């Protein structure tokens, strides 16, 4: 009875205990009390750590800790998404610049044509019909390019749940790949800031090494990459610790 009360208290003081590193002791206590009714480690502490990073509007965010409204195919009933990562929106900057430049291309061409035509340098004429068709096709190409880039960005995500790490890759034109790995197989994570663009926008590349056949996950242009790497390793360490303790309980005489 006394032990049970102590576990109730543990829930009330969870953040405090977590900060004081007494959490593992209390979890062990709970295992002793409840034995086979062992529950997975709560992720409340992780949520608290990243509360300031949580985003209210999850619609088009590039980095979401513990998203509430996002689900994926074949998600298990008890499985909870802890992290969703997309590329930093700054990667659109180059496309936006090129598109802006592309908008003015027909005007420049028409002006150049008129200039040389009026001087009599051109030996041919282009009908208005062809100008209209060319301009329409050009703007259609620009629109397709923007839309294609947006779709690629929106659906090309990395997810981390309390069970696995997933890479949904829709970047190629006609195929998509879904790669996943148990988070128990994650060995280490590395984040790199390369180039002035990434330094400017506080984004980086994260490489997650695993013990699975497909040995690593590469997350490119991740916003706030050091925090994300830290989060990934925190979850992995907690999960490995929980798994170890569960095995100890199961194997106990």
């Amino acid at each position, binding site marked *: 009875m006394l032990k049970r009360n102590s576990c109730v208290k543990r829930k009330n003081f969870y953040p405090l205990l977590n900060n004081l590193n007494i959490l593992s002791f209390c979890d062990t206590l709970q295992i002793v009390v409840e034995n086979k009714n062992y529950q997975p480690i709560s992720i409340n502490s992780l949520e608290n750590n990243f509360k300031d990073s949580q985003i209210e509007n*999850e*619609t*088009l965010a590039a980095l979401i800790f513990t998203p509430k*409204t*996002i*689900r*994926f*195919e074949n998600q298990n009933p008890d499985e909870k998404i802890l992290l969703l990562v997309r590329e930093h929106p700054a990667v659109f900057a180059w496309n936006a610049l090129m598109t802006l430049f592309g908008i003015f291309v027909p005007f420049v061409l028409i002006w150049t044509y008129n200039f040389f035509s009026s001087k009599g340098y051109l030996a041919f004429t282009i009908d208005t*019909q*062809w100008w*209209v*068709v060319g301009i*329409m*096709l050009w703007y*259609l190409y620009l*629109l*397709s390019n923007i*839309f*294609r880039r947006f*779709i690629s960005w*929106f*659906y090309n*995500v990395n997810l981390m749940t309390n069970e696995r790490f997933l890479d*949904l890759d*829709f970047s190629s*034109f*006609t195929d*998509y790949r*879904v790669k996943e790995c148990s988070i128990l197989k994650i060995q280490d994570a590395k984040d790199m800031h390369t180039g002035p663009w990434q330094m400017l926008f506080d984004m980086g590349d994260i490489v997650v090494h695993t013990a699975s056949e497909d040995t690593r996950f590469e997350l490119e242009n991740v916003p706030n990459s050091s925090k994300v790497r830290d989060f990934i390793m925190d979850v992995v360490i907690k999960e490995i610790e929980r798994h170890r303790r569960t095995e100890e309980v199961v194997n106990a005489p």
Partner: protein
Amino acid sequence: MPPEISLQNVMSVTELLMKVLVMLLVIGFVIYALIIWRQVILASKVLKTKATQLVRVMAAIFVLVVIVVNIIISIILWI
């Protein structure tokens, strides 16, 4: 008797070839838009977010725009 080869005939053949090329381009654009739309439908089954429905609507609008613009281009070319 062989047909007479004149500059006007050569120009009209070139124009015809150009029209055929543009039509191929137009058909290619429609296929491209349909593939993107299909990919969006597939992707939205895998990842379900609040914005999924919005993106599907955007994809449908994109396909419609491509088809309408291509019909206009065809009308301009052939009529």
